[in-house]
């Protein structure tokens, strides 16, 4: 369906998008994840035809649409601040796209009512958009983007401006609506939880490049760089030196750790970074891959506890346990070798 | 947006239609004080089968400037309104073609300042000090009889005049003092006027309507440099019928400067014959008798009859100030500059 090919763009003299290529399949939801200011919104605007690219192509069903102006692409885009027209009522906002398509008045009324129904705001049609709350505005913006029946829907941080409770509530609603629409969606966010919730596939945009692409599970369990590992929420990192290649063994300040496989080219004596996922530790159930640690505190998280440890070298790490461990206790942790991420 | 554009175009179109083209036309360049009665012009147009266009170009100086700037390709056929203060500039720049109109015989020689008849006198008037009669009566003040009288303490702060650099009346009054005191003495006189509380403003409007006590403006000065005909105009344009003018002129020796206005055929005209006819027409009786009540100047043609308002309310100075146009032309700029140095310091 949508195919993006080698898009480049500078902004303020800096390379913002460097050779970006990817595609979005029919009724696929692709999450574009990356830190704020990383060019995600710019990329959306380029796909929408709102901004010029320096080189590259945008294709739809194999046809180059790079020169098609934004208003003829039929790509819906929902903005982070919703961009509702302040001089129009809720209904007028939603009807806007239909009017642009010269849909007849009766049909417009019907579809606006349906759209309001879809976002659970049936009686809001006559309201002023400036009188709406953030969540209401978000839903109207969604209704406005959807009612015009775009070929592709792009959402730019759709939940970004909302508070947490509202975000969780609307996240579920949004998922339902998107699921029902059955069109390709590009969902931009900087929040990995949000991406996990929506994505069929995730694209990580970092330093102007697509760093990794894959299912949420793939990316979470095998992030390709230490930076991405941290961005995915893996906070436990420790440095070490390769002492053996078969099996791959790393000498750290706190003990010898064996890993499944490594990113990059490990060699004897090479410095590497190990990332230990939070679910990779047990209390000494093996004889190797042991770390001596002291429990600092256990934080209740509903399904279990996040337990913070202090290692022998003074470094702190947190692992997930189904039950609490008493603070101050010295324990030996064993780490699952296949879970350890080793970056050479 | 289209709507606005369309609106603009329509308005322009309407305006265009308002000034439709005419076939045979004579263009007369003049100043914006020029006024003539409809029927007088209509008569000329009918007799000569011509349409007369008037090109009004600011004041007399401005009109002359335009004639000079366009002298290589004149935009008009006749230039009317250059007076004796600007005459030498017009003659030096060579904007006129000579034309000895037969009607010159009816005009007194004192007005014929150009012996080659490039500029022909049409009308004249005096720039005089006007005073508010009531003020002088109420305060039992004697009417000043001479320039010297104006420097006396009883008239302190009573005279307002105009800046000669920005006003033609101001310039005329300056020239009158030069005629009286000579190029070497006039600055001394102005110094004494200044010491006696002379008020100077930039234009006739302000002098008459803001400073002069005899006008609606009820200003502070009972004497103003204006025209000899102003008292008559006060009667003509009074709100109610008046038997007597509220103002009068000071007409002592050299106290009034006589402005003479000229007409001439612009060099390079393609309608010399018509232009000659128009000059003759301006010097002839019908036009000449139309001058007083329209432009409030005296006709140069001595056969022209004067209206009652002129004979009743206008005082004519016996000895108006006069300076040769060449002297004015040569020295005017430096006289004005010296005056500005002295008065505006």
């Amino acid at each position: 369906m949508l195919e993006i090919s080698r898009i480049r763009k500078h902004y303020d003299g800096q390379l913002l998008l460097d050779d970006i290529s990817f595609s979005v399949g029919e009724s696929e939801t692709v999450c574009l994840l990356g830190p704020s200011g990383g060019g995600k919104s710019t990329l959306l605007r380029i796909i929408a035809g709102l901004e010029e690219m320096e080189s590259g192509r945008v294709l739809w069903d194999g046809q180059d649409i790079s020169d098609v102006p934004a208003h003829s692409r039929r790509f819906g885009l929902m903005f982070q601040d919703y961009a509702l027209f302040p001089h129009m009522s809720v209904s007028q906002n939603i009807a806007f796209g239909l009017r642009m398509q010269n849909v007849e008045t009766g049909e417009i009324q019907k579809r606006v009512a349906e759209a309001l129904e879809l976002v659970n705001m049936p009686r809001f049609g006559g309201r002023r958009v400036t009188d709406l709350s953030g969540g209401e505005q978000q839903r109207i913006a969604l209704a406005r983007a959807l009612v015009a029946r775009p070929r592709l829907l792009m959402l730019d941080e759709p939940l970004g401006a909302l508070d947490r409770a509202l975000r969780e509530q609307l996240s579920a609603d949004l998922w339902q609506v998107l699921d029902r629409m059955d069109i390709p969606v590009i969902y931009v966010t900087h929040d990995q939880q949000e991406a996990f919730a929506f994505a069929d596939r995730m694209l990580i945009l970092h330093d102007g490049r697509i760093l990794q692409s894959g299912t949420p599970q793939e990316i979470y369990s095998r992030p390709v760089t230490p930076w991405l590992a941290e961005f995915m929420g893996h906070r436990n990192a420790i440095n070490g030196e390769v002492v053996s290649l078969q099996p791959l063994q790393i000498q750290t300040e706190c003990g010898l750790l064996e890993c499944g496989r490594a990113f990059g080219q490990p060699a004897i004596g090479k410095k590497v970074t190990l990332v230990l996922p939070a679910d990779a530790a047990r209390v000494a159930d093996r004889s190797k891959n042991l770390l001596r640690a002291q429990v600092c505190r256990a934080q209740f998280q509903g399904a279990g506890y996040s337990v913070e440890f202090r290692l022998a070298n003074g470094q702190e790490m947190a692992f997930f346990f189904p039950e609490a461990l008493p603070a101050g206790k010295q324990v030996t942790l064993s780490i699952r070798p296949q879970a350890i991420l080793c970056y050479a | 947006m289209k709507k606005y554009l369309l609106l603009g175009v329509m308005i322009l179109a309407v305006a265009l239609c308002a000034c439709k083209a005419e076939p045979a036309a004579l263009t007369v360049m003049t100043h914006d004080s020029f006024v003539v009665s409809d029927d007088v012009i209509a008569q000329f147009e009918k007799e000569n089968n011509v349409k007369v266009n008037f090109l009004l170009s600011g004041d007399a100086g401005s009109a002359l400037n335009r004639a000079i700037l366009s002298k290589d390709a004149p935009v008009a056929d006749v230039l009317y309104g250059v007076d004796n203060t600007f005459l030498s500039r017009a003659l030096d720049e060579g904007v006129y073609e000579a034309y000895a109109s037969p009607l010159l015989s009816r005009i007194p020689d004192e007005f014929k300042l150009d012996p080659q008849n490039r500029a022909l006198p049409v009308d004249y008037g005096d720039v005089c000090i006007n005073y508010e009669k009531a003020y002088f009566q109420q305060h039992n003040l004697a009417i000043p009889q001479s320039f010297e009288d104006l420097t006396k303490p009883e008239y302190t702060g009573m005279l307002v005049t105009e800046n000669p650099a920005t006003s033609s009346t101001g310039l005329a009054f300056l020239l009158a003092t030069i005629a009286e005191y000579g190029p070497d003495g006039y600055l001394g006189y102005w110094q004494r006027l200044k010491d006696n509380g002379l008020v100077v403003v930039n234009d006739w409007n302000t002098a008459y309507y803001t400073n002069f006590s005899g006008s609606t403006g009820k200003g502070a000065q009972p004497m103003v440099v204006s025209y000899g005909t102003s008292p008559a105009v006060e009667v003509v344009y009074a709100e109610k019928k008046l038997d007597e003018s509220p103002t009068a002129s000071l007409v002592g020796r050299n106290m009034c400067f006589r402005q003479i206005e000229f007409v001439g055929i612009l060099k390079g005209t393609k309608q010399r014959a018509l232009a000659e006819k128009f000059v003759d027409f301006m010097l002839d009786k019908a036009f000449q008798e139309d001058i007083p009540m329209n432009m409030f100047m005296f006709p140069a043609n001595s056969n022209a009859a004067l209206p009652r308002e002129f004979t009743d309310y206008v005082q004519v100075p016996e000895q108006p100030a006069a300076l040769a146009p060449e002297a004015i032309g040569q020295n005017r700029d430096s006289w004005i500059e010296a005056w500005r140095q002295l008065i505006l310091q």
Partner: protein
Amino acid sequence: MNRRRAGRPALWLLPLAFLLVFYFYPLGRVLALSFSQWVSKGLAGWNWAVVRDAVGFTLYQAALSTLLTVLLGLPAAYLFARFQFRGKEFLRVATTLPFILPTVVVAAGFNALIGPRGWLNLLLMGAFHLAQPPIAIQNTLAAILLAHVFYNLSIVIRTVAAAWEGIDARLENAARTLGASPFRVLHEVTLPLLRPAILSALLLVFLFDFTSFGVILMMGGPQFTTLEVEIYIQTMQFLNLPLAGLLALIQLAFCMLITGTLIGTGRSMDVPLMPRVRQENLRGARGFTEKIFVVGLSAFLIILLVLPLLALTAQAFFIQSEAGGWHFSLTFFRQLFLNPRSSIFYVPPITALRNSLLYALAASSLALVLGMLVALGASSNSRLNRWLDWLVMLPLGTSAVTFGLALFLAFGMSVSAPRWYPLLIPLAHALIALPFVLRLIEPALRSIPPNLKWAAATLGASPRRVWREVELPIIRRAAATAFVYAFAISLGEFGATSFLTRPDIPTLPIAVYRYLSLPGTLNFGQAMAMAVVLLVVCAASMFLVDRLQLSFNIKEETRKHA
């Protein structure tokens, strides 16, 4: 791709061409003439001291006038932007009226009020038993400043109030709750947000004061010489075109420099704000201090701006009899419909009204269209935008005498010229009004968040429809204000008109001047009556425009309840 970099040339090329043909080409002609004469004749009457003094005083009085106008205008803008009070519409229109009046009429109004025998002076003399009138400002700097404030206060009020209305009062409230005193809120929140509007107002007022002619001439008197006055004298009296050309060039250079600097600083301070379309920031005065503020400031504005208008209006209706008393009469107005002398050029004065309205309608429509084209065409390219902005300001900083001469040299030197020459009047007026239109529309347009336009585009709106459906409705208020100003500028313009007008199709200000070029109570009264007609017409058109805006808002309201 280049399309974006050059803005949209299809849009801005037209206004640029207009400027080139009707401004730069004529100006080039007059400057070329000046300098060819300079070469051939040398600089006669060359006096550096004159030039220096004129430059110095021009800058001095313009800076002082502008400062004073802005200082008085800001509180007034606050009054209009934040408070709802009785008589507000009247006051809004009344503050704009001075703008259209010919100087000669304003001078008469001030004279009737604070002249030596003006009402205010008579009142004070009677009340305090004074021998001399206490207010004596004729031919002083104070008179110049007063007149400049009188004329230009409305620029500050309208420009800044429009922006102020657009600032969400909640922002100010937020700052208050964060512990900022009202003064700090003003200093740290409101003023920074208003800065572009204030700079715009500053720029316009400065240019008006900088090239002011009538006020300096009539209110200031001969001891005050500005560049504009000196250009007039050198051109009209001495026909010293080299010096006049040089002075015009100096004037233009200063104007370019100051305009460029202000536009440069102004541009970096833009903040896009979600536009507020409803008058949701308005409220009644609460508490003693606010009430005092509203009442006091309204009273001040009325005294400063309305009283002189009343004074001249009174002179059109009341006639002093010989006994000294006053009686009411409509004589002057009746006379407006007559042409008693049936003289050529003395068309019934009331037809001057028709001419003025036609010119004003054409000029303001043209200025609005051109202004929108510039604002729109260059909006995507900030450098181009800045250049065009700057070029467009120049006619306002150009001497009317020079410009009149320039138009004559460029277009008046043909035999057919007298016939179509008056058509240049609306064009010249549009040139003078264009900076206003642009200064009002452009900030409004720029403050629209780009997301709104993008959202419309992704919903299928072509650039043209984005303009019609999103941008135009949002800037409607600014556009209406711009139109009113352009209209008022055209109605009141005298300088350029006096060089272009044809005697049989005079405008109202021209007719007023003609009356005042002759003595006689009838002439004076009719001039005042004419000025009153000018006032009424202008006030009526402003009410109409405000009403149109209001009806737009009301429509929104009814939709809400539908």
